[in-house]
C-alpha cells in the first residue's frame, strides 16, 4: 500500500514537473510561425507611393483635400485584402522644441484596430516648397588661380583606367569638382592642351595656379608640337617639360591612378604600326619609369638628363609588390564634410618612394593615404607633394587600377579645404514623418 502511495506521490511530482516545464516552454503564437515581414512591406509600400514625390506632395496638404482620399484608395489597392493599415503623419519639429515629432491630426485607416500584433515603418518626406542649399566656397577666391583643367582630349588614349574612358572620368570629375572652382575647363584635345602649356587661355581663365587633372591614368596626352620638340629619352624630355611648366605656372598636376607619366599619347601623331604601349593600345609611346623622375627633375629645375644618367634616370620608385593602403585621418574627416565616401582601404601597387622628398626637394602637403614601410623603405600610396620653392605640386595616387575618381576629388578638397556654406535650417513645416502601421486580419 505504501508503495502505491509513493508512486502516486511520484506521479504528482512528475506531472508537476511537466506543468512547470510546459510553463517555460512557450510555443509561438500561430501568427508568429510564418510571419509576413510587415515592416518591409510597409516601407516598400510607402516608397512605391512616393514615386514622383506623390506621397510627399499629399502629406503636406490639408486633411480635407481630396488628395487624401486618393492616397487612401491607392493604399488600399497596394495592400493585400488581409492586411489592415493605419497611416499617421507627424510634423518634424526643429529648433528648441522639446518634442521632436508632433502628432498631426492626420491619420487614415481601414480598420478600427490593428489586431493583436502589427509592425510599422516610417518614411521621412520633405516639403517641395523648401530647398536646402549648400554653397561651396570657390577655390582661389581669396587669392589667384581657381582654374581646374580636366584633360578630356579626344585624340589621346588612356591606360590603367580599365572599364572607363578618360572622357567618362572627366565628366564625373567635372560633376564632383566644378562647384568648388571658379572656372572649370574641359581640355578637349591635345591642341588645346598645347595652348595652355604655352600659357594661352582657352576660355579666358587664369592659367597660373591651376589644378590640372590627367584623366588618362598612366598615360598623358602630348600635343603634336611638343611630341616633335621633346621626343628625346623616349619622351621623358616631354615629362621634364611638364614638370618645368608645373613649376613655372604653379600648377598642381594630378595623376589619378598608377605610375604617373608612364606613357605619352596622341592618336594623331603616333599613328604608326609600332606606336602602341606593348599591350596593343595604339596611339601611344612608352616612357617608362623615367617619366615621373623627369617630371620631378623639371619641377626641381634641375638639368635633364641628370648627371650620371645620360639616357635619363629610369630607376624604379615603386615597391616590388602591392599592399593595402588606408586613408589618412585628415582625409577621413573630410569624407563627412564633403559627403564623399570612397572605401578607406585601397590596393596600392604604384606607391612612390619617400626618397623623392629628399632627391627633388619636395614636402608633403597632404597625405591622402598613410605611409607604408616595406623592407625599410617608406612609400606614399597617395600624397600631394609641394616643391619647397612653393611653386608647383604633384598629386600622385599610386593605386592599382581601376581608378576611383572620388579619391582624386577628395584629395584635392582635403588639400584646398573649400568651405561649405549650408543654408540655415530655420524654416518650419518642412519635414514630416509618415508612419505606416500594418496588421493582419484574423487569427490569434
Amino acid at each position, binding site marked *: 500500500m505504501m*508503495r502505491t502511495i509513493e508512486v502516486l506521490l511520484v506521479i504528482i511530482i512528475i506531472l508537476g514537473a511537466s506543468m512547470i516545464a510546459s510553463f517555460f516552454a512557450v510555443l509561438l503564437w500561430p501568427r508568429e510561425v510564418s510571419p509576413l515581414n510587415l515592416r518591409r512591406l510597409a516601407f516598400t509600400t510607402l516608397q512605391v507611393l512616393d*514615386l514622383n514625390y506623390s506621397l510627399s506632395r499629399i502629406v503636406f496638404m490639408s486633411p480635407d483635400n481630396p488628395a487624401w482620399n486618393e492616397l487612401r484608395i491607392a493604399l488600399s*489597392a497596394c495592400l493585400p485584402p488581409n492586411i489592415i493599415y493605419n497611416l499617421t503623419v507627424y510634423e518634424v519639429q526643429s529648433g528648441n522644441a522639446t518634442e521632436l515629432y508632433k502628432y498631426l491630426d492626420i491619420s487614415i485607416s481601414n480598420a478600427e484596430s490593428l489586431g493583436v500584433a502589427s509592425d510599422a515603418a516610417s518614411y521621412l518626406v520633405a516639403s517641395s516648397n523648401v530647398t536646402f542649399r549648400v554653397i561651396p566656397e570657390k577655390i582661389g577666391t581669396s587669392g589667384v588661380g581657381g582654374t581646374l583643367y580636366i584633360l578630356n582630349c579626344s585624340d589621346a588614349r588612356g591606360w590603367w583606367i580599365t572599364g572607363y574612358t578618360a572622357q567618362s572620368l572627366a565628366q564625373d570629375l567635372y560633376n564632383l569638382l566644378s562647384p568648388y572652382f571658379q572656372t572649370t575647363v574641359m581640355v578637349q584635345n591635345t591642341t588645346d592642351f598645347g595652348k595652355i602649356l604655352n600659357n594661352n587661355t582657352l576660355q579666358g581663365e587664369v592659367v597660373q595656379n591651376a589644378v590640372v587633372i590627367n584623366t588618362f591614368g598612366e598615360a598623358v596626352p602630348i600635343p603634336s608640337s611638343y611630341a616633335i620638340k621633346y621626343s628625346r629619352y623616349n619622351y621623358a624630355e616631354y615629362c621634364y617639360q611638364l614638370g618645368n611648366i608645373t613649376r613655372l605656372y604653379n600648377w598642381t598636376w594630378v595623376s589619378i591612378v598608377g605610375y604617373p607619366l608612364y606613357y605619352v599619347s596622341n592618336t594623331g601623331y603616333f599613328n604608326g604600326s609600332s606606336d602602341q604601349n606593348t599591350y596593343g593600345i595604339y596611339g601611344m609611346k612608352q616612357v617608362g619609369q623615367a617619366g615621373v623622375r623627369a617630371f620631378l627633375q623639371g619641377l626641381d629645375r634641375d638639368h635633364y638628363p641628370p648627371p650620371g644618367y645620360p639616357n635619363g634616370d629610369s630607376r624604379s620608385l615603386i615597391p616590388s609588390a602591392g599592399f593595402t593602403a588606408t586613408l589618412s585621418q585628415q582625409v577621413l574627416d573630410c569624407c563627412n564634410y564633403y559627403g564623399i565616401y570612397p572605401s578607406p582601404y585601397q590596393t596600392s601597387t604604384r606607391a612612390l618612394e619617400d626618397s623623392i622628398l629628399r632627391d627633388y626637394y619636395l614636402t608633403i602637403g597632404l597625405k591622402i593615404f598613410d605611409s607604408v614601410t616595406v623592407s625599410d623603405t617608406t612609400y606614399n600610396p597617395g600624397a600631394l607633394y609641394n616643391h619647397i620653392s612653393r611653386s608647383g605640386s604633384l598629386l600622385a595616387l599610386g593605386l592599382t587600377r581601376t581608378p576611383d575618381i572620388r579619391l582624386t576629388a577628395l584629395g584635392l578638397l582635403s588639400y584646398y579645404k573649400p568651405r561649405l556654406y549650408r543654408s540655415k535650417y530655420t524654416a518650419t513645416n518642412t519635414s514630416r514623418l509618415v508612419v505606416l502601421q500594418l496588421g493582419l486580419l484574423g487569427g490569434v
Partner: protein
Amino acid sequence: MAGSTIDHLISVMVFLGALLVFISLFNQMIQTAILYQRHKFLATKCSDLLDNILLNPGIPSDWGKSNVTPVGFGLQKDPEFTQYRLSPFSLMRLLSSSGDRVYYSQTGEWYSNVSWGIGGGYFLLQESECINYSVASKLLGVNGTYGFQLTIAPTVKVSIVEDKNVASYLRLNITVMGQGSPLADASVDYLMFWTDSSEPIKNSTKTDSLGFAYLDFNGANGLPRIEVSRNQTAYMFIAKASLGGLHGIGYLSREIVTKAGNIILLVENYGNGTVLLAHKWGKNDPGPGDSQAALFFNATFYVLPDSFSPIKNVTVEGHVTYGEGLDYYPIQIPTSQVGFLVVTYWTGNEYGMVVMPWGIGTIGFSVVFGGDPSGQEWVVTDVRQVLVGDIAYQARLALWSLEGYGVVG
C-alpha cells in the same frame, strides 16, 4: 510477503505508465516547439532571400541587358541602384515557370513562355538565353537546401476587354483593380495603335468608384469610329492607370487567326535583339479550310519612356509564307531601351495585331520564376512592393526547405 510484492509490481507498472505518458507529452511539446522554430527560421530566411534578390543588381550589374550568364544573381535596376526598383531587362531573362515551354521546329529551339498570346501579347525567349532556376539557386547559395518561386506581378491590374454587347462599333471596357480594392477615380492615359492611323491616338479618361471606365470608338468625343466585327481592321490598346503615386498598366491587342494564320513573336537572340516573326503554320499545321497564302506584316518598335509618349524607332515590312522557306522573318530591334514591338499582319481584308514588350513592365507582364511549391511540407511567402519603370509591382517569394521533413536551421 506476496501482497507486498504485488503492491510493488503494481506501483512499478503505474510508475512506468506515468513516465511513458509524461515522456510522450513532453516529447510532443518539444517537437512542436522545434517545428515552430524551424518554420519561423524559414520565414526569416525567406525575407532575407527576397531582399537579397531585390536589393542587388547581380554581377555584372548589367547582365540583364546582354546574354551573358551572371556570376551573381540580383534584379535591382542598373545603374540607378535605387531600393526596390527592379531592372525591366533582368526580369525578361528569367526562365518562366508559368507557361508551358514552346518548341519551334523551324529553328529546333525551345522558348521560355512568359506570355503566349495573352491579350495578343507574346514574350517567348530562347531558353539558352535565359537564366534558369538551377543557376539562380546556385548563385543565391540555396541550391540543394531551399527551393523557391519568385513571382513579380503588377500591383494594379488593368484589364481591357471588348464589349461584345456593342456590335456596331468598338467599345473597350477598362477595369482597374488593386490588391484589395478597385482603383476608384483613377486617371487612365491610353494609347491606341490602329491599322487605319499612322500615329497612335493618345488620350485619357477616368475610372468610376468601382474602378471601371469604358471608351466608345464611335466617331464621337474625338475618338475615331472603329468597327472590328468583320476583322477588317485591328488595334493594339495600352492603358496606364494612375492614382496617388500608384501606377498600373494593361493592354489588349486584337489578335485574330486569319485564313492564312497569324504571327507569333519569338526572341531568337537576346543580345542583339533578333526577333523572329514566325508564321503560325510553322508551329501548327494548317487545317483543311486554312489558306497557305502569304501573310503580310508591318512591325514597328516603339520606345516607351515614363512620360507615356511612345517614340517610333524601327519599322520593318515584309511577309511570311508557309511552305516556301519563309516560315519566319527575322528582324532586329534596339535592346538598350524599354518599349514594345507592335506587329500588324494581314491577308486579303483580314487584319490582326500582336505585341511584344521589350522590358517587363512596359505593358504590365508578370514573371513567375523558380520551382514548384506544390507538395512541399511547409512553404512560407513574403512580399515586397517594388517598381519596374514607374509601374508598381509586387515581388512575392515562396520558399521551402529541401532537406527532409524538417527545416534547415
